[in-house]
């Protein structure tokens, strides 16, 4: 809050101090004799033209180096233009609100303090701008000449006809139409989306294709057989109850016990042994007479090892 009020008061005090100082001291730069031109500056490297937003000094106002002379409107922002030297704004050539002022154009005349600025005229058009206008005019006839030469070589007609159609024309279609000198595109029937012309239509019209879709054939669709299947009848109350009860009964039935064979050593080992006929036989035998001779099978198992 304090700081908000402070700079203004400070600035005013400084301004009065500065004018006092100016009266006492020399100005920074007093070396100019003639009127200098203030050209439109490029405030950014890409700027080619701008507008004058507002002049901050009037004709005849003195200014010192660093004072804002005017605000320039570029396409990006409004930027202040500061003065480089001390001086007096002698004459404003482009007023407030001027648009499209090219970079380099003289927008004002600056003079030194004490100069007579009563009868100043706007500088006459210098040779530099006239040479610039000459250059574009000489270059302007050249491209049309080159363009006409090219079009003449391609076809004998000089003007380019533009085929039109009630529907929008696709670029590929437009190119074909122009290349083949079809002026009236309504003649061709359009089979594209919403009746637009397609490339195939034009080619078929020209005879270069057999049909608008060429060799593409749509796959045959089988007729839907829907009459055989009867729609399911809606269930009435009794049928629903029947359905529920049958579902419950199937759920409530105890599961059939899985016949579990008590595992013997051989039966467990048999999974890991390589399947040979003897072991298969012995395993099947052991299954049948499991309690009969477990020891003999184990002895047989160790036969090869010991």
């Amino acid at each position, binding site marked *: 809050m304090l700081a908000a009020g402070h700079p203004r008061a400070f600035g005013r005090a400084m301004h009065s101090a500065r004018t006092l100082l100016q009266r006492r001291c020399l100005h*920074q730069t007093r*070396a100019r004799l003639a009127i200098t031109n203030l050209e439109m500056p490029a405030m950014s*490297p890409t700027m080619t033209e701008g507008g004058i937003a507002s002049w901050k000094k009037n004709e005849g106002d003195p200014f010192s180096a*660093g004072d804002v002379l005017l605000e320039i409107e570029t396409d990006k922002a409004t930027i202040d233009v500061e003065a480089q030297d001390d001086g007096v704004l002698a004459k404003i050539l482009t007023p407030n609100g001027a648009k499209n002022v090219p970079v380099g154009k003289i927008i004002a005349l600056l003079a030194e303090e004490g100069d007579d600025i009563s009868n100043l005229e706007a500088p006459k058009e210098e040779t530099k701008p006239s040479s610039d206008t000459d250059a574009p005019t000489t270059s302007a006839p050249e491209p049309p000449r080159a363009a006409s030469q090219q079009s003449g070589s391609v076809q004998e007609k000089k003007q380019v006809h533009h085929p039109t159609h009630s529907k929008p024309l696709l670029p590929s279609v437009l190119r074909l139409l122009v290349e083949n000198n079809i002026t009236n595109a309504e003649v061709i029937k359009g089979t594209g989306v919403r009746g637009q012309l397609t490339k195939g239509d034009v080619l078929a019209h020209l005879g270069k294709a057999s049909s608008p879709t060429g060799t593409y054939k749509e796959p045959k669709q089988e007729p839907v057989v829907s009459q055989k299947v009867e729609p399911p009848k809606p269930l009435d109350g009794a049928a629903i109850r029947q359905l529920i009860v049958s579902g419950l009964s199937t759920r409530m039935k105890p599961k059939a016990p899985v016949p579990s064979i008590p595992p013997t050593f051989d039966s467990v080992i048999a999974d890991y042994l390589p399947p040979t006929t003897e072991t298969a036989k012995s395993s099947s035998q052991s299954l049948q007479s499991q309690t009969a001779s477990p020891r003999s099978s184990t002895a047989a198992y160790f036969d090869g090892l010991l």
Partner: protein
Amino acid sequence: MASLARIRPCLARRIPTLVRGIQMSADTTQLQDAITDPSQPFTVKLHEDSFRTYKIDPPSLEVQVQKDELLKIYKDMQCMRRMEMAADALYKAKLIRGFCHLAIGQEAVSVGLEYGITPEDRVITAYRCHPFAVMRGGTIKGVIAELLGRQDGMSKGKGGSMHIFTPSFFGGNGIVGAQVPVGAGIAFAQKYLGNKTATFALYGDGASNQGQVFEAFNMAKLWDLPCVFVCENNKYGMGTSAERSSSNTEYFTRGDKIPGIQVNGMDIIASRHAVQFARNWVVEGNGPLLMEFVTYRYGGHSMSDPGTTYRTREEVQRMRSTQDPIRGLQRYIEDWGLATEQELKQLDKEAKGEVDQAVEEAKTSPIPRSEDLWTDIYYKGTEPSFMRGREREEVHYY
């Protein structure tokens, strides 16, 4: 954030100066005795707040100056100001493209440095280098032509602002803070060759926080290199004020074991005196020294920066009107009776004429030829047998 930046300088001004701060004015040096013979050197006394030191005794506040030297300094500062303003105008006329970093307001540092050292001393700085390039043996026409990209430029138009060299000036460097270790290396070479010269490695307040700067400090102190590290503190690193970027804004104390001295960079006599002091200190073999010039730039960081988004226009105007170095020297010259207003106006005119003529000559210079694409890549005589160009088919045989 921008609003904070605007409020901050106002707050800083309102704090009463309990702590002794550095003097920032350009016109506080007093004449000691009346000048009897204008052709003889006379003594002036600097303001007591012109220097602040760290781990070193400050230089004496009494300085010997001479009339001719002061007039020459005035002319040189005015030339540098005019040259930078001409570069500004050429950039706005879209003749200079790309980067253009101007040192308007910081003339006392470059001219003060030049008048404090010998032609054999080495200087290296960053990209705000146009006045240094001219002072160290370059020409105004050479610098302007280089900015315009013409054959008469100091690097034949192929280098631009960040590639200007003279035998005792090592550029002109684009990477922030990269020139400081290079400067330490140049000092190492001087010590190795046994030359009794000093090397001045300059950097800005924005670059002072770079890591390689501290690495250079360490090596310089370890091997007692004759290097003066100069920090040009213009209070803003691009758009960030020093308070917002650095935890320690007393850049002359950042050298840890390296002694430092802070100098009023707007007073030309204080600047020159401090540079002489630093050079003598370093050449005597006392190891490196840190110098901080407290100065100010009126323009933006570069030509694409208006300079008013992070500081108020009032601040810039205030510095311009009350602490301008050229105006300060002008006051000294007039107050001490060395020259009249007319004579100084004449010097101004001469400076402007010189710069205008240099600009006109530079503008008439042609742009580099396409054959010049292949020259100056290698040192003459050490080129390889062929060099590839921009496309595969473009090959040049030497």
